[in-house]
């Protein structure tokens, strides 16, 4: 019997030892988690994306000699080293290496000095990483990206090719080669599990934070870029066709509801400390200075023009204008209530030749 007992003991001990938790592996990630750049010309916080860091800066910044400091994933290393001085005037790229040495990632550092352009023709786009469409503007050689929720749609598993993403281009242009095309899309079984069964096509001036897109989608849309002009009118062209079945976040169909798009521009004041407005307060914040929202909407196969005034809720102050305290966003969405995941799959909004008429 003693033999048997020791045999059983040996087997049990063997299994336990064999199935022990092993020592933790070194970190495989190589993120820039934060960047600090001490320069009085920098406006607001830097935007840190997965491969890109953007600083908004006032004209007058000396790009020839800056020394940004980085906070990285624990254990990661950066080349060139954090805190060293470099010339950023012709662009600058850093490479971060993971602690385990198996992974590395390049970050482009970009400085935006010009305010946003005032005319948008949606002629410039690229297919980012072979996945989805990314629109950008060129302003005296400086590149400014439009934000959209495309990077989050990747996680629905439905974006197997660029034209399946909610934000894409159309060759049906009012002028030029291309227009913006937004289509409310299904996010499949995973999206439905998360009570986010649809993704409205959207495009806006600002930043989309992919990281929090599933847990706090309203805060994932950070609206606005510094704007140094006084906008007076908002105009452009669109086509809209609502999708067939309007659903809510539980994917329940409402036969009596029809989908509706949204196009608006908001100018807001950052002097109270809010560097950006989000999906939670972009239309309600007390910081809003002026708003122009398309209210008179037409469903049509032909291009329809909108040309509406900015409605000023606060006085426009020249002093704030000159110190870059005003931010502006322009927002397009193929489902007006897409932010709370209500809308109709298939709703399509095409937009082209948008312009902000500003005070000279």
């Amino acid at each position, binding site marked *: 019997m003693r033999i048997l007992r020791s045999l059983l003991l040996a087997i049990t001990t063997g299994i336990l030892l064999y199935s022990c938790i092993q020592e933790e592996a070194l970190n495989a990630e190589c993120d820039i988690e934060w960047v600090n750049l001490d320069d009085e010309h920098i406006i607001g916080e830097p935007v840190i994306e997965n491969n890109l860091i953007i600083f908004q800066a006032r004209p007058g910044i000396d790009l020839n000699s800056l020394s940004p400091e980085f906070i990285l994933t624990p254990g990661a290393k950066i080349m060139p080293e954090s805190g060293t001085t470099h010339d950023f005037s012709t662009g600058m790229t850093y490479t971060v290496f993971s602690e385990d040495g198996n992974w590395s990632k390049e970050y482009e550092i970009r400085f935006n000095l010009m305010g946003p352009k005032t005319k948008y023709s949606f002629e410039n786009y690229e297919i980012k990483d072979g996945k989805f469409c990314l629109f950008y503007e060129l302003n005296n050689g400086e590149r400014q990206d439009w934000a959209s929720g495309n990077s989050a749609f990747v996680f629905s598993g439905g974006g197997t090719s660029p034209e399946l993403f909610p934000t894409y281009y159309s060759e049906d242009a009012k002028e030029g080669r291309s227009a913006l095309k937004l289509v409310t899309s299904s996010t499949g079984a995973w999206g439905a599990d998360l009570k986010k069964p649809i993704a409205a096509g959207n495009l806006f001036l600002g930043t989309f934070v992919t990281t929090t897109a599933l*847990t706090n989608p309203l805060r994932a849309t950070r609206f606005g870029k510094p704007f140094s002009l006084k906008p007076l009118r908002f105009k452009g062209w669109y086509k809209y066709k609502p999708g067939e079945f309007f659903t809510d976040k539980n994917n329940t169909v409402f036969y009596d509801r029809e989908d509706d798009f949204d196009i608006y521009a908001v100018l807001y004041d950052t002097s109270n400390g809010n560097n950006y407005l989000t999906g939670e307060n972009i239309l309600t914040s007390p910081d809003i200075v002026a708003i122009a929202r398309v209210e008179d909407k037409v469903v049509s196969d032909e291009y329809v023009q909108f040309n509406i005034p900015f409605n000023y809720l606060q006085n426009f102050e020249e002093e704030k204008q000159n110190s870059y305290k005003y931010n502006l966003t322009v927002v397009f969405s193929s489902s007006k209530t897409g932010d709370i995941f209500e809308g109709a799959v298939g709703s399509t909004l095409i937009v082209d030749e948008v312009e902000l008429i500003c005070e000279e």
Partner: protein
Amino acid sequence: MKKIILLASFIIVSLASVFANDDYPSKGLQWSYLRGLEYRLKAGFNIGGTSPLPLPQEIRKINSYDPTLQIAVEADVVKWFDKWGMLVGLRLENKGMKTDANVKNYGMKMTSTDGKVIEGNWTGNVVTQVDNSYLTVPVLALYKLSRRWEVSVGAFLSYQMKGSFHGYVYEGYLREGNPTGDKVVFEDDAQATYDFSTELNRFQAGPQVGVQWKAFKHLNICADLTWGVIPIFKSDFETIKFDMYPIYVNLGFAYVF
């Protein structure tokens, strides 16, 4: 499947209680006894894990483990040669469990119920539920250590009749593609499900060792370890980057005719 096994175990228990009072074996049993043949009916629970061995570095912590109700019923024929015996049986059994593990940088491909696929590296919690039904043939050598104790060594071959391997991830983040990809956080009740049931191997086999203790004239209490050596997933399944094996202990009793 579970219902069939439950029903079968109920029949065994009833039979056992009927025969337990019978001190006069039938003619058939007498005939068998004279030729060194013995018949057994067994019922028990499978407790164990379908697990990678050793645990890969990606697994940081087992948050919880639930053996769930996994039943096995078995009919055996034993041929005795003095102290040695040879057993062949037929077993209907479930092997399964539910685990909740915390992982770091766990390479996985998630397939949704509507066939969408995301591949990437997950850091956070993973819940796995396994529930497989097998038809198993054990072939064992028996040895009587004493009047009451008996040990067995041999092998088993299983055919999987129904398999289920599914679960979900929660509270963590996914990096799309690889550790440098876009990152998305899952918090609160956000979860993504996966289901690899169709990728399971049909066959399973491995060594089996056991011990039986004769509690009463007709009733043995038994414990058997079955160690599957065939990875549970098909060889072309690469989503989970390490092989997993079913390792279970069966605890139960046998009615000996």
